[in-house]
Structure formats: structure tokens, C-alpha cells
């Protein structure tokens, strides 16, 4: 029973490459574009650089319209951890920072920086770094300014992949499989720039401290294999020739192909000490460290329905139209353009979209080249899709659940493990666009998750708000109770029979009045007739008082202050009343919750009457005071004093009556 397993184990050890489950063999169409060397494009009239060229956060614009920039100058800075910088691909002027159509399946516009080249192509000062001896951390951190992202198509910021991880990297796999039909950019890169590729691998090896290095190349690129094999001689780098089975270029598939290790679905290959880089990405790394050149261009295959398919070194931001022209123009029956390969690529919304960091291939499509799919037929459960699936999913089940919007069940069947390679759709005898269903289901699930997150946040914030309102209410009640208690005590001391104030403000006013009263009664020795004294008299009193204070006879207290205070209180009450009336009139109650929004004319009249009454009473009291003053005496005799006191009390009583009347009305 054990024998066959052992034999299998022995066989495995001697095997050079390990075939993964599923996959399809596709017509290659690669010979179209790999006949000519990599071409250079003339400078276009305009470069449009989308800020969103990579996975992650949009970078922050660092230039303004009208600025002159040099080739390689940083124009947008990486923001947050997963982000990449953008550099000016040539020297010129910033023409616009506005929305333009993106090379994105949505065809929606997004923020782009437009540069008008000046034609000089002047480089900014470059800072090469010694990658052979320099400090690894410094080198890796400096990559944040390089703008280098994975050039295989995913456009993941490279700096993050080079940062030290918890588990050290022992194996570095260079992805040069290039499994999709039509695409030949990596093939041509290896044929022409093999020496730089090897240096690039050495850079990555130094930064990751990897021991084993393998380059995985599909066996349909014999020239590239030959070139690389010659270049890696005596370096310890292995060139692994993998069979041409789509999708061997998927990182996990390639790791399995060259190492025989399957990376679990919920883990990254780095957790097992394996890191994967695209061959063009390591070359960009080398150029950044050796020459100080940031990511400003890439090699793009322009193929399909064009007159002369070829690979070009294209500056980022070059309009597609310009590239098509360089490839001899599109043939007359070209219907649209596809970015990426025919399996995983998407249709471009127009010929004006720019080439971005993730654009490895542009295919001009026509109805003869890509026949429109025949109408799909019902699923016959032949399970050919399951045989073809490189991730060993059950596409027929996923299709069923995605079609019926049963996303929960689709996730149970590991919808998110799907790499959207399209092998299932390719083999489907019923021509069902399976991948489209999975994409739809995935983006729905992502949107639902986001909505759920937002709902949770809203729930939390709502609960917090309710708790806060409750707390504030309790605090307010406690404060009111304390104040009312204080006012009551004060009133009891002041022998006042007024009702407890109903609202906060009124309570405060009442309390203030009561305080003033208590103070007055305790300070009965202080003169009460200080309001209408001449300046000279006031000064005299002040002088006397200061002498008294100096002698330690009394507390420091200006006699004028008493009168002032009273006047101030009266004024404050009047002001508060006026304000209240104003606020009521406006009928807009602001942040002050205590104000009553509307007071009708009747009430207003009553308030006015009360105020008038109070004023008359005050005037009478004032007259009496004045008469007392006219005698020229500072201190009035007891009888007069009693009279004045009575008058003041009357005035106060009138005022209180007015206040309480108002309280009643307000309530």
C-alpha cells in the first residue's frame, strides 16, 4: 500500500518542474510581436499620468499647473503605506491636473496630471546608490521614492514586497513565464537586456538575502531561455523551463511549478520564505539603484490588428493613439483595444487613454481576430471547468451561486480564491462567460462588506451620540438642581418670596439678584446713594476707603462698586430681556435650547408693560435717592434710610413681579 506513494515521492524529488492542476493550452500568437527589436517611441505631444496607476492609495500631487518639471522629477508622492510615487517621464510643463479617462474596465475618469513635453528630455540630477554594499534598510526605504510597482500587471508597490518580513526569504522566484497569448514584452526584455536582468536579480537577492534564485520561463521562448542561461552562468541562478500551460505566470502557480510547494489560499508565499518578482520589475530596481532612474517607462507589446506588431519602450502617460501610430497604425476593421492579454485583459474605453505602469500589452481587436462569443447556453454540468481550474475550485457551483446572487454560498465555495484567469470560460462548451459572473459576485461582495462596515460605524456613532445626549441631560439636571438649591437658600436668606426659577437663565438671574441683595444687606454700612455723586466726591470716598483698607479697618471694597454692580445687574437683565425678545422674534432658536421660539404679541405687550412698571418704580426710588443727595449729606439719617430701603424693595418687588410674570408666560 505504501509502495506507490514512496515511488511517487522519489519521482517528485528528481523532478525539475511540477505540473499544477488544470490549466489550458492556448494558441500563442506570440510570433506576431517578437520579430522586431524593442522600438523607441518619439516624444508624444502630451503625457497624461493617472494618479491611480497602482494598487493602493492615491499619491499626493506635488506640483501645480504651470510648473516646469524635469525628466525623473517627483510629481506625486506616495501616501500611506501601500502607494507609489509618480515621476515626470520627460521634461516639460504641467498643463493640467484634472480628471481624464483611465485605462480601467470602468471607463470612468479619474485624477490625472498632464505634462506638455518641452522636447529637451532634460534629466533631473540622478542619485545612483551602491546597491552592492549599501545598507539594505536604507536602500529599501529609498524605493518609496522610486515609483516602482510590479510590472507583471498587478502593479503592487515593490517597496512593500522588499521590506523585511517575519519569516526570512530563502527563495526568490523570478516570474518570466509570460503565459498569456500575444504578450512578448518580457520575452524581448530577456533577449535584449539579459545582462541588466541578471543585475536586477542580484539587487533583489541582496535586498532579500535570498539563497536560491530561480527564473521560471515557459518553453515557448527558446531565445530568451538561451540568452538567460548564458547570462546566469557562474552566478548560481537557475533557469527553470516550465511547460507552456496557461496560467503558469500566476505567482502561486509558478511557485508550484518550480518548487513543488502549494501556497495555502489564505497565506502569502513570503510566509514560506518564497518571494516572486516579475522580470521587468527587477530590471527597474537595477536601473533605479545603478543609475538613479525612477519608474518612468516600461516595455509594452503593441500587437493584434496593427500593421506592424512590435514591442516598444513607452513612457508612462503616452496616449494609446501615439503607440498605435508607431506600430504602423491599426487595420481598418479594428473595433476596440484590449489592455493586458486576451484572457485576463479588459476593453479600453477609447484610443485616448494613457499607457500606465500595469500596461504590459495592448491588443488591437477586431471581430475576425476575436469572434464575438456565441450566445451562452445552459450549464450542462460537464465539469470541464473544474478540470481546467488551476485553483481547483468548482466553477460550475460558483457560477450557480453568483448567478442567483447567493453570495454567501459562493464564498463558502471559495469565490475569492478565483484568480479570474478565464480558463473555465475558455473550456466551457456552453460558452458561459463564467469569469464575468465571478467578477460580478466578487465586486458585489466587496461592496456589501463595505456597506456593512459603514453600517457598523454608523451604529457605533449613533449609540455614542445617544449615550452622550443622555449624559449631558443628566449633567444638566444635576446642575439645575444644584443651582435651584443654591438660589432657594439665597432667597431664604434674603427673605424673598419669589418662585424658584423655571429655566437655567432665569435661575442664574434670580441667583445673581439674590446674591446682590444678600451682599447689600450684609454691607448695610456702605452708602446706597453713590450712583449720582460727583466725580470729586467719588474720588474722596475712594481715598477714604483706601486709607481704611490700609489701616486694616475693612475689606477692600470700593463703595462705587456696589452701585456699579447694581447698575450692571439691571443692565444685564434688560439686555437679557431684549435679547430674548429678539430671539423670539426671529423664531429661530439657535444653540440655546432654553429660549422659547415664539412669543405672541400679547405676551410681548405684557413683558413690555412689566418692564415699564419696573422702570417707573426704579425712577421713583431714584428720585428719593436724589433728594437724599441734595441735602449734601453723605450719610442719610435713619428715617430717610428706611424710606429709601422701602423704595428699593418696592422697585425690586416690582421687578420680581415682572420677572415672575414673564416666567409664567414663558412656561
Amino acid at each position, binding site marked *: 500500500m505504501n509502495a506507490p506513494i514512496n515511488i511517487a515521492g522519489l519521482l517528485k524529488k528528481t523532478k525539475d518542474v511540477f505540473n499544477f492542476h488544470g490549466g489550458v493550452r492556448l494558441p500563442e500568437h506570440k510570433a506576431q510581436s517578437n520579430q522586431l527589436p524593442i522600438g523607441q517611441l518619439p516624444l508624444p505631444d502630451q503625457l497624461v499620468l493617472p494618479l491611480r496607476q497602482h494598487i493602493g492609495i492615491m499619491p499626493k500631487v506635488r506640483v501645480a499647473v504651470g510648473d516646469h518639471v524635469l525628466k525623473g522629477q517627483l510629481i506625486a508622492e506616495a501616501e500611506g503605506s501601500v502607494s507609489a510615487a509618480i515621476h515626470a517621464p520627460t521634461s516639460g510643463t504641467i498643463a493640467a491636473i484634472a480628471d481624464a479617462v483611465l485605462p480601467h474596465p470602468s471607463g*470612468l475618469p479619474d485624477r490625472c496630471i498632464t505634462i506638455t513635453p518641452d522636447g529637451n528630455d532634460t534629466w533631473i540630477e540622478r542619485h545612483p546608490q551602491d546597491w552592492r554594499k549599501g545598507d539594505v534598510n536604507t536602500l529599501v526605504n529609498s524605493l518609496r521614492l522610486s515609483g516602482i510597482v510590479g510590472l507583471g500587471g498587478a502593479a503592487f508597490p515593490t517597496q512593500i514586497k522588499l521590506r523585511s518580513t517575519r519569516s526570512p526569504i530563502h527563495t526568490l522566484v523570478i516570474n518570466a513565464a509570460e503565459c498569456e497569448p500575444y504578450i512578448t514584452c518580457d520575452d524581448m526584455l530577456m533577449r535584449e537586456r539579459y545582462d541588466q536582468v541578471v543585475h536586477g536579480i542580484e539587487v533583489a537577492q541582496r535586498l532579500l538575502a535570498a539563497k536560491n534564485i530561480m527564473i521560471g520561463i515557459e518553453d515557448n521562448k527558446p531565445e530568451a531561455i538561451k540568452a538567460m542561461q548564458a547570462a546566469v552562468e557562474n552566478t548560481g541562478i537557475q533557469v527553470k523551463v516550465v511547460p507552456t500551460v496557461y496560467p503558469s505566470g500566476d505567482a502561486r502557480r509558478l511557485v508550484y511549478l518550480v518548487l513543488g510547494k502549494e501556497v495555502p489560499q489564505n497565506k502569502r508565499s513570503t510566509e514560506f520564505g518564497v518571494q516572486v518578482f516579475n522580470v521587468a520589475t527587477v530590471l527597474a530596481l537595477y536601473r533605479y539603484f545603478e543609475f538613479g532612474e525612477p519608474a518612468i517607462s516600461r516595455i509594452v507589446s503593441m500587437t493584434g490588428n496593427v500593421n506592424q506588431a512590435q514591442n516598444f519602450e513607452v513612457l508612462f502617460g503616452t496616449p494609446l493613439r501615439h503607440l498605435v501610430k508607431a506600430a504602423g497604425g491599426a487595420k481598418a476593421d479594428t473595433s476596440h483595444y484590449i489592455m493586458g492579454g486576451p484572457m485576463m485583459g479588459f476593453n479600453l474605453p477609447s484610443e485616448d487613454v494613457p499607457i500606465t505602469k500595469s500596461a504590459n500589452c495592448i491588443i488591437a481587436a477586431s471581430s475576425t481576430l476575436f469572434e464575438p462569443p456565441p450566445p451562452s447556453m445552459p450549464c450542462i454540468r460537464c465539469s470541464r471547468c473544474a478540470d481546467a481550474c488551476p485553483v481547483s475550485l468548482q466553477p460550475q457551483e460558483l457560477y450557480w451561486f453568483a448567478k442567483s446572487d447567493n453570495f454567501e454560498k459562493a464564498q463558502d465555495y471559495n469565490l475569492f480564491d478565483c484568480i479570474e484567469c478565464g480558463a473555465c470560460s475558455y473550456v466551457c462548451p456552453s460558452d458561459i462567460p463564467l469569469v464575468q459572473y465571478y467578477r460580478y459576485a466578487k465586486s458585489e461582495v466587496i461592496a456589501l462588506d463595505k456597506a456593512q462596515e459603514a453600517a457598523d460605524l454608523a451604529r457605533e456613532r449613533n449609540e455614542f451620540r445617544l449615550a452622550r445626549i443622555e449624559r449631558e441631560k443628566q449633567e444638566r439636571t444635576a446642575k439645575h438642581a444644584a443651582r435651584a438649591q443654591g438660589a432657594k437658600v439665597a432667597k431664604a436668606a434674603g427673605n424673598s418670596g419669589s418662585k424658584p426659577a423655571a429655566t437655567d437663565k432665569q435661575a442664574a438671574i434670580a441667583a445673581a439678584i439674590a446674591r446682590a441683595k444678600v451682599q447689600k444687606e450684609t454691607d448695610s454700612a456702605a452708602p446706597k446713594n453713590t450712583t449720582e455723586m460727583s466725580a470729586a466726591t467719588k474720588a474722596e470716598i475712594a481715598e477714604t476707603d483706601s486709607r481704611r483698607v490700609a489701616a486694616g479697618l475693612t475689606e477692600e471694597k470700593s463703595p462705587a462698586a456696589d452701585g456699579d454692580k447694581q447698575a450692571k445687574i439691571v443692565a444685564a437683565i434688560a439686555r437679557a430681556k431684549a435679547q430674548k425678545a429678539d430671539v423670539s422674534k426671529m423664531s429661530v432658536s439657535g444653540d440655546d435650547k432654553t429660549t422659547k421660539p415664539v412669543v405672541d404679541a400679547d405676551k410681548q405687550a405684557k413683558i413690555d408693560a412689566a418692564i415699564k412698571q419696573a422702570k417707573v418704580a426704579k425712577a421713583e426710588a431714584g428720585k428719593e435717592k436724589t433728594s437724599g443727595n441734595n441735602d449734601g449729606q453723605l450719610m442719610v439719617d435713619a428715617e430717610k434710610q428706611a424710606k429709601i430701603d422701602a423704595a428699593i424693595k418696592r422697585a425690586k418687588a416690582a421687578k420680581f413681579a415682572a420677572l415672575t410674570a414673564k416666567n409664567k408666560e414663558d412656561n
Partner: protein
Amino acid sequence: MLTALYIMLGLALLLGAVLGYAALKFKVEGDPLIARIDAILPQTQCGQCSYPGCKPYATAIANGEADINQCPPGGDEGVHALADLLGVEYKPLNEEHGETKPKAVAFIEEDVCIGCTLCIQACPVDAILGAAKHMHTIVASECTGCELCVAPCPVDCITMEPIEETPENWKWKYPIIPIKSEIKL
């Protein structure tokens, strides 16, 4: 015979003790049904259901006081989810409570705002920033689109702006296979 009885009795006592312990140890606090209903509700806190928020509506549903079809922001899917959860028959959304609208966020025209703070008091999720006599603004990421701030504004400077589609929130569409007429005349 007796041994068997003893065994059964012993087992019954043992299991009873285990169950009793588990009932105490793993006691669920609060009403899980309300929480589950609340989890389905969209947390817009708009009050269109005639309850002062999602949680009170969830409580009302759990107590059998409210119907499941009173939440317009939750839409048809929300009613379906509630029907599934509660094991009741699906009902189309009650139009009395309003209709489902595309998701929107409030927008304050800042030139017009007088800084009265009324909208701040109305916002159920504290998504409006501002102070008395100072301009207010919406924290768009926190706004649930409940529209509760629109009515109190004395100068009508708040509008509801539908959320626009961007490359970031764009979704792949459901595959539609166009029906082509093969018959050529």
C-alpha cells in the same frame, strides 16, 4: 435491571448538572434577536420607519409591534433578509414609509450656511462639523444619507448628493448577454 436504572439516573443527573452549569456559564446577555435584526438594518438612522432609529425599529420588530417592510433604505433585499431571519412571509416595501433611493450624502452649501447648528443637532451620527455662527460641513465618510438635516435648515443650504461612481467604488456588472436577432430579412 436496577443497575440499568442507576446508570440512567446517574447519567440524567450528570447531564442535568452539565446543562445547568452551561446555562449559567454561557448565558447570553441581552436579546440576541434584536441584535440580529439590527445587524440587517442599514443603520441609516433616518426614522422613516416611524421609529427614532434602527435599534428601536429592531426592538419593535422583535416585539411584534412593527412590520418588516418599513425600512426604505434597506430596500427589498433588507425585507427579504428580515423575512428569512424571522421566518415570515416576504412583503413588498410599505410605500407609506417612503421609497428606496440611491445612496446619497448630504452636502452643505458653505456660502449660504449661517451657522445655526440646527443640522448638527439633527444628525444622528454626528457627521456634521461646525459651531454656532460658524460655517458647518459634512463629514462625507460618516454621513448615512438619512436626510434628517435637510428639513431643519432655515436657509435650505443642505442638499442630498447621490454618491458618484468612481474607479474606486465601481463594480463589475451582472453579465448580460444581448439577444441578437439571427433572422435577416
